[in-house]
């Protein structure tokens, strides 16, 4: 039926047309640069566009579970040894050091206040003004 058409025929077509170009381009790049996103992003983008055009040609939806399985295979074959591309949003630092760093000045505050109080009181006493006043 239609779903089989959009699964099997679609996968056939993209393997035949899209994957072959992709494979050739990847093999043409040196091995050390295959994990660098700046180098391969254009190739990857072309692969993705190709799958879109195939889907349009076959009147199939894009994306689809078939596409997911295709790309999972691609990633398993070419990118398993790569580290993830750098995150645009930095990840949250570990909670322990944050708590320590936040607690330190927060706890220092009342200590410093007490110190200021004591110094102010000492200052007043040394000037001989504490008590009943003049």
């Amino acid at each position, binding site marked *: 039926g239609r779903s089989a058409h959009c699964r099997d025929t679609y996968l056939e077509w993209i393997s035949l047309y899209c994957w072959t170009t992709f494979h050739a381009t990847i093999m043409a790049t040196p091995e050390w640069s295959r994990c660098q*996103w700046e180098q391969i*992003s254009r190739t*990857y*983008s072309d692969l*993705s*566009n190709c799958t*879109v055009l195939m889907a349009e040609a076959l009147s199939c*939806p*894009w*994306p*689809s*579970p078939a*596409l*997911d399985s295709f*790309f*999972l295979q*691609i*990633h*398993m074959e070419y*990118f*398993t040894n790569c580290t*993830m*591309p750098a995150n*645009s*949003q*930095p990840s*949250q*630092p570990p*909670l322990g*050091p*944050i708590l320590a*760093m*936040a*607690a*330190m*000045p*927060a*706890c*220092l*505050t*009342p200590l*410093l*206040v007490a*110190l*200021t*109080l004591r*110094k*102010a*009181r000492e*200052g*007043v006493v040394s*000037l001989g*003004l*504490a*008590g*009943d*006043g*003049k």
Partner: protein
Amino acid sequence: FLLLVLLIYINRFSFLQRMAPSLTSTVSYTDPTLEPVVTEHSPVRQKIIDSQFKCYERMNRDPPYRKKGLFCNRTWDGWLCWDDTPAGRVTAQNCPDYFPDFDPTERASKYCDETGNWFRHPESNRTWSNYTLCNSFTSEKLKMAFILYYMAIVGHALSITSLLISLGIFFYFKSLSCQRITLHKNLFVSYVLNSVFTIAHLIAVVPNPGLVKRDPVSCKVLQFFHQYMLGCNYFWMLCEGIYLHTLIVVAVFAEEQRLHWYYLLGWGFPLVPASIHAVARAKYFNDNCWMSVDTHLLYIVHGPITAALLVNFFFLLNIVRVLVTKLRDTHRAESNMYMKAVRATLILVPLLGIQFVIIPWRPESRLAGEIYDYIMHILMHYQGLLVATIFCFFNGEVQGALKRQWMQYKTQWGQRRREHCSTRSTSYTATSITEVPVYLYHHDSTNDQLNGKYIDDSELVALKSGETSD
């Protein structure tokens, strides 16, 4: 919970940032039948490809679904990555920021039906994720963001003006100066600097996505000083509280304290949390221009501020307790005067602190939420104006000094006009002019002197007649 306030504040403005180069989307995404497909190589397309790559990497590396029951498989829907979801559940995540009118604080959702398949839109029979909330409120939010933005700038400008006027008054009228006024001056200076840095940030950094993208060191330095000044504000309020406490509770109205430690606490200590925050931010969460408020690292600065507010509040309660119970019988007149002095600080500390308390309770409904935002913005950005008004313009002493100066000018003009017509010598009029303010000061000071000198009325008169120069 403090993060929520800044989240509202900054989210409005980072929202604004994305609006500044207003492009229109080339895709009709609210149409359920059209898939999100754009085939030219644009920055938008590049962002989407990046997300797609990361999605499939994540799908590969995440462990397989282990729970029992039906579930929908993890998938890439063209814009966002969706994890394995149990059947019959709606999963949601934040909207992407690919398009200018997509609000990343809104949520996109996807429904996994009972049969373990993703929801298909009835019209097109294709799997469909719900992105309608992402752009439905955008224009209203944008309008409100602009209003709040301009309100903030106006608030800080007004604060700077009123604080500079107050500082001018305090420096000009030497008769007003005492240790408490010195602390006020320092507080006002810290507020002025805080407003200056905030306005610089709002005008130079927030509407300027190019600058944020370039991420120069100067904008991080600006943020560092901004955090430092914020700390100084609250620690100077704390110094005011400590001073009053020492004055009233500890030393019973004696005036001369050494102020060195107050300066250390007010200007020196806030460097510590600001520096720790800068180092931690640079090491762990080094986003562009340190604009993001989505990090717990901000607690490094806001923790001590909250501690300072709490300590201040307890000091003030203690002062009120002492004034009411111990001094009521023995020094009634003075305790009344000190009540007036304490009243100003007592009003301000809760006002400054209340924004930290009511933060967690932002109302859910749209209208109430907007009203809440307006109130929070007024509380946050008009603080300088409030402090200047309560500590300076509403101060009886200051009003008295201004009135005397005004009377002096009036009599001077009056005398000058009469000089044109009369034949009196100028020296006679000069001496009569200098005597007038002393006479007035004499009388006023017995009624409302707030300088903290515990002296008998008769002694006061004797002293004042002795010192005619201030």
